[in-house]
């Protein structure tokens, strides 16, 4: 390669910056500008700066990829822009210090395709996320986008489209897993005009962000899938219901609709056929229950988003009492691929009853947090240890929570179970929206159950008694247990309440709200018993049940704990062993965090007393060699 003419070979190179929400919060807008500026200042030719939607590897954000070589840069800051441009784009020397480092081997990996987080995935729904500019319809069309719609309109009858989807085995990716083709067929066969096609993008589960990333990274696939669905059921109006908390998704979907209208993929007489579809965006207003389909429709109608009993199902009487079909973002994003590649191709991936791929938001105590897409049936162990890179900090795995507030916590013994709708349900959890939160030994399972209940309790719409009052009772009990005020019969009471709420609630919110409690009771009962009987939190997490002590044989009297203690409850002096006033301590753990690692003098215990002096005493003199210098 000639160094004098870096742009020789006429090779166009592009550096793609991720502008998904995660990377934007890491200042990727500013990074994009800084790269453009550096390229301009150096007068480089044949180098473009472009952006994409979410790459999924948000933990490493902001991320950038240089194509065509496929060099992947992690955690890039504005300050790195100049070096990337000079060293890599001008001189052809990639910036090694910005390569991704494998959390297990510590090895620096230059190429995107070699990173385990990516190489073990199989991307269908997220196929374009991170690979094209989501604000340009031409980019989507260049990948074959909107060809599936054309194929449906020109070559297939609505019945044939439904049949193809049915044969593919696609099931609703919103969580319940109802066969998508059947749902379409019910609506197609329902009488009444007009019919409505609705996309449920009210991703409310805490810990799930795949719908957001799909809309931000590849909005056109959602629109194309939705248009195909509308053609299949005979709908003339479409609504995309997006959470207002997702402003970037709202913006990109609105833009995509406008572009699709300009190209004639939406509007009247699409592709010269007699099929017309008008699409609208409705912004949610912050109510978790609106993810439930009847509540969502009430919300579109401008009412309080409260669910109603079914039947009648939306397919016969939905929005404004008309036949309506509602699908999740991911289900719709899959549709164009099934039409393009065929039902048999799609059905070849996955398990007997769960076909295709599923997207998980892998978060919590895991090395590689982010969005992953894997074939149905993959064992949890593979997701957590190979793609996820295991638990950071040498900690021990305790549980994995799937399905958000409606799902459950599964213990280590389930790690080799295949992930699909049936096996997760059999374990007491569910697929749900795809949240997958990994928990380690420091996570208290009683606290996790309490956390989820506090969420569902606050989000209960209040229409039916079991959910409104039942979840309140369960939450009260859990809070009491976490405070160390649990009673021996609380476990039975929780079990009973949970089963009754599941059986008696009107909608999925109430019917699934007890799951986190019931699964933790099933798999982590001993933690409840420790809290209730011994007033002990085994994970050392519940503040009312833990205490901190400073070990006299380790404390060197440096005073850093006392200076940082927010409640000023640590007494001591230079070269004096410090002492925590247990009555004043708020158990924030700051002393443990700041105590220098080489001393390690602060310990956290539960239901245990540590023998420490009641007043500061002089620091024990150490043998010379080991004497450490005090202070920081």
């Amino acid at each position, binding site marked *: 390669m000639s160094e004098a003419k870096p742009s020789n070979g006429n090779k166009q190179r592009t550096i793609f910056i991720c502008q998904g*929400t*995660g990377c*934007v*919060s*890491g200042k990727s807008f500013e990074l994009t500008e800084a790269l453009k500026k550096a390229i301009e200042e150096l007068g480089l030719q044949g180098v473009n700066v472009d952006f994409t939607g979410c790459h999924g*590897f*948000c*933990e490493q*954000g902001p991320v950038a990829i240089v194509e065509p070589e496929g060099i992947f840069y992690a955690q890039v800051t504005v300050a790195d822009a100049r070096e990337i441009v000079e060293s890599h784009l001008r001189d052809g020397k990639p910036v090694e210090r910005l390569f991704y480092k494998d959390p297990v081997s510590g090895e620096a990996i230059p190429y995107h395709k070699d990173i385990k987080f990516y190489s073990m995935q199989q991307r269908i729904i997220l196929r374009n996320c991170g690979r094209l500019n989501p604000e340009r319809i031409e980019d989507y069309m260049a990948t074959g986008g909107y060809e599936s719609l054309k194929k449906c309109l020109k070559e297939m009858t609505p019945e044939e489209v439904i049949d193809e989807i049915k044969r593919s085995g696609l099931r609703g990716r919103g969580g319940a897993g109802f066969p998508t083709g059947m749902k379409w067929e019910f609506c197609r066969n329902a009488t009444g005009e007009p019919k409505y096609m609705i996309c449920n993008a009210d*991703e*409310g*589960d*805490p*810990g*799930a*962000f795949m719908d*957001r990333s799909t809309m931000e990274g590849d909005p056109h696939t959602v629109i194309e899938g939705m248009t195909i669905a509308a053609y299949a059921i005979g709908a003339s109006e479409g609504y995309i219901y997006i959470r*207002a*908390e*997702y*402003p970037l998704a709202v913006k990109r979907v609105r833009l995509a609709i406008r572009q699709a209208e300009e190209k004639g993929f939406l509007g009247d007489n699409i592709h010269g056929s007699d099929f017309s579809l008008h699409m609208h965006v*409705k*912004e*949610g*207003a*912050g*109510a*978790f229950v609106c993810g439930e389909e009847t509540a969502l429709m009430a*919300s*579109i*109608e*401008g*009412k*309080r*988003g*409260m669910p109603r009993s079914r039947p009648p199902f939306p397919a016969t009487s939905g929005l404004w009492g008309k036949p309506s079909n509602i699908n999740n973002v991911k289900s719709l994003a899959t549709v164009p691929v099934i039409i393009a590649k065929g039902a048999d191709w799609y059905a070849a991936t996955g398990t007997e009853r769960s076909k295709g791929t599923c997207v998980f*938001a892998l*978060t*919590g*105590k895991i090395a590689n*947090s*982010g*969005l992953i897409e894997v074939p149905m049936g993959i064992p949890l162990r593979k997701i957590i240890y190979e793609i996820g890179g295991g638990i950071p900090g040498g900690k021990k795995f305790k549980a994995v*929570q799937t399905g*958000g507030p409606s799902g459950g916590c599964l213990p280590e013994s389930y790690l080799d179970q295949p992930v699909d709708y049936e096996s997760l349900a059999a374990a007491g959890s569910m697929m749900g929206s795809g*949240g997958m*939160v990994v*928990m380690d030994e420091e*996570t208290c399972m009683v606290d*996790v159950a309490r*956390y*989820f209940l506090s*969420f569902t309790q606050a*989000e209960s*719409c209040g229409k039916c008694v079991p959910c409104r009052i039942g979840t309140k009772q369960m939450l009260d009990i859990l809070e009491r247990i976490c405070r160390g005020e649990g009673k021996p019969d609380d476990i039975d009471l929780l079990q009973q309440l949970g089963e009754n709420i599941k059986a008696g609630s009107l909608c999925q919110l109430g019917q699934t709200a007890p799951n986190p409690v019931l699964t933790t009771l099933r798999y982590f009962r001993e933690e409840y018993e420790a809290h209730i009987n011994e007033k002990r939190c085994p994970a050392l997490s519940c503040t009312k049940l833990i205490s901190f002590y400073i070990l006299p044989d380790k404390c060197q009297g440096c005073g850093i704990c006392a200076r940082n203690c*927010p409640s000023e409850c640590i007494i001591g002096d230079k070269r004096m062993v410090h002492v925590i006033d247990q009555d004043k301590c708020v158990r*924030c*753990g*700051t002393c443990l965090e700041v105590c220098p690692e080489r001393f390690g003098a602060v310990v956290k215990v539960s239901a245990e007393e540590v023998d420490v002096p009641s007043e500061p005493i002089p620091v024990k003199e150490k043998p010379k060699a080991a004497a450490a210098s005090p202070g920081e």
Partner: protein
Amino acid sequence: MIPLAKDNLTKADVQDKLEEIFSRYKGEKQELIPILQETQAQFRYLPAAAMREIARFLRMAESTIYGVSTFYAQFKLTPLGKKVIRVCRGTACHVRGSAKVLAEIEKQLGLKAGETTEDLEYTLETVACIGACALAPTMTIDSETYGKMTTKKVAEVLGVRSKAE
């Protein structure tokens, strides 16, 4: 019951802004939520006088407007602070210590979640999930997102804001 703001605003105070909003709508019942969203964007909360005018425009009972406004978490009946701080309490953030981050912010601002400072500078809220779970724990100040928060970073994040003014 959630109280209305004691703001003494009258119809005349809200009319101009509302007329401008209403001009984009047909006056159909389904338009209630978008109209409330635009109204809140204008006033930073829903003044009682505005809610009355919306009821008239949509020919709906005032109680229905109140019912919808109080059902959805997005709508506020009392003024928000100039800066709205939202601490994510989603699952991923929870297991990575968002409760401590929230407690630290509460301490530094002397506010509890859901409250606004008397000088209307800050409002502190919690939010169920902002969908940036890989950066947990997260918080936002207005439209800025801050990831991988720690109690130590709180002062810096709040401090940066006050210096920038």
